[in-house]
């Protein structure tokens, strides 16, 4: 239909609907469950699908509907349903329709194994208005099932993906680079280009996070053992050297500078929040330190967003090692160090994570911003180095 005098089309992903102010929250991420029907060893959160104790603690349908009502009333335009595997919840359809009927867009993170013809029909009839994000664990039964550690999951996932394709439900795919599928990147990326909604190569998780509940040292040992070395990470990131350099230059010109003593230098808790499966509100999905979570069952989203999170964002680091290194390091934009990573790795908010530090330094040395013997926190002329690398002045 052509444009008219009365109705104007909007692409909410391109244009902010908020022109004069900002909503208290633009999107709420909701972990509908920590349970998953896969059993991936690299996962930071998964519990068995039949974990009755976990299921009994999960927010009820009504609890989540009340949260959706509040998030909509505060101006959010979208929610993310994630997990665990969100489609495991018996009330997924009810929650999905409830959110959509509030005018919320729904971003669904799924492994696609539980997408049935009925679910695909629903998603086709009532579109989520956001591309579904499907994580693909392998291009072959052997690799996929070796990652998911669930027999039959390969067939289930690809059946779900075919249903999405058949019904033209927009989705993108992501990968998780693990020993069983590490040789399938080219095959995966080639296939990804054949799906209609991928406008760039798929992203991968590879710097796997430790258990965010800090509930299993054995699982954490395994995660550490399957992480690629900093050199391997660099090799993967620079497979397409020109594209890597271009994006890194662009990124560095915007996001590189020493973060200083404030703990939160990211946007966590500012315009967004994450709700865990049991009613605790977190500034980000990984950060479950008891000092940084808010009990939504005894409070409100508005209170968390206007009082609790702003106070968090004023928190300062006290760890001398962090203050001597991370707080003074201009590689912030290349480094994933943050309170959440410190929490998962060390149970604190401000302990340097050596692995992340090494990955950041490997990248900085590759692009010539550091010499082999230098560290990011020792560099006095970091602005000049950034300017030389990116060709732009740091704001």
């Amino acid at each position, binding site marked *: 239909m052509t444009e008219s005098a*009365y*109705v104007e*089309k909007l692409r909410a992903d391109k244009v902010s609907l908020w*022109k004069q102010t900002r909503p208290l929250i633009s999107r709420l991420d909701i972990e509908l469950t920590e349970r998953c029907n896969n059993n991936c060893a690299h996962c930071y959160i998964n519990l068995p699908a039949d974990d009755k104790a976990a299921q009994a603690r999960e927010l009820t349908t009504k609890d989540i509907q009340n949260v959706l009502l509040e998030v909509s009333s505060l101006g959010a335009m979208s929610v993310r349903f994630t997990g665990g595997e969100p489609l495991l919840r018996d009330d997924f359809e009810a929650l999905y329709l409830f959110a959509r*009927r509030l005018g919320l867009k729904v971003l669904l993170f799924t492994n696609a194994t539980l997408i049935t013809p009925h679910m695909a029909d629903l998603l*086709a009839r009532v*579109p989520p*208005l956001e591309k579904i994000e499907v994580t693909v664990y392998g291009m072959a039964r052997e690799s996929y099932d070796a990652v998911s550690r669930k027999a039959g999951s390969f067939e289930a996932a690809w059946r779900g993906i075919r249903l999405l394709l058949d019904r033209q439900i*927009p989705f993108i795919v992501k990968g998780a680079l693990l020993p069983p599928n590490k040789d399938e990147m080219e095959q995966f990326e080639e296939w990804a280009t054949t799906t209609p909604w991928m406008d760039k190569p798929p992203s991968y998780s590879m710097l796997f996070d430790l258990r965010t509940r800090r509930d299993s040292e054995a699982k954490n040992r395994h995660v550490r053992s399957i992480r690629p070395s900093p050199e391997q990470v660099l090799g993967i990131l620079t497979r397409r050297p020109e594209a890597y350099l271009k994006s890194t230059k662009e990124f560095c010109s915007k996001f590189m500078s020493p973060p200083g003593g404030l703990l939160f230098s990211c946007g966590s808790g500012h315009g967004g929040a994450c709700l865990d499966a049991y009613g605790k509100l977190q500034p980000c999905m990984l950060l479950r330190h008891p000092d940084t979570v808010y009990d939504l069952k005894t409070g409100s989203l508005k209170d968390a967003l206007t009082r609790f999170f702003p106070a968090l964002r004023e928190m300062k680091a006290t760890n001398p090692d962090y203050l001597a290194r991370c707080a003074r390091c201009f590689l912030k934009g290349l480094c994933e160090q943050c309170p959440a990573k410190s929490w998962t790795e060390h149970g604190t908010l401000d302990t340097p994570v050596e692995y992340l530090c090494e990955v950041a330094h490997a990248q900085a040395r590759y692009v010539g911003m550091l010499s082999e013997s230098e560290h990011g926190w020792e560099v006095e002329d970091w602005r000049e180095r950034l300017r030389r690398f990116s060709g732009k002045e740091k704001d």
Partner: protein
Amino acid sequence: METEVRMGSVYAPSEDVVAREIEGEIIIVPLVAGIGDMEDELFTLNETGKNIWGRLDGKKTLNAVVAELAGEYGAPATEIAKDVSGFVSELLKRRMLVAVSG
């Protein structure tokens, strides 16, 4: 699909869309497929459309809406009727409105 506009009829927002108010603007969010050309398309109404939309409550006829707007804005009813009819016609075609009676 009935798209003929009858001024003696009553119209209401369709259940195929959800209307939200953001900073005083009406944002129409499709609920079902096929409302927009793109899957993630949203819509907003201009000032005229906004004033009419708020009165299409499933109770008032379009004639009553015209009379109300004419009284409020002091404009000729014939001019307002053109806008009301044009607006309703377009939103019926877009499946954003439905006839409740008439």
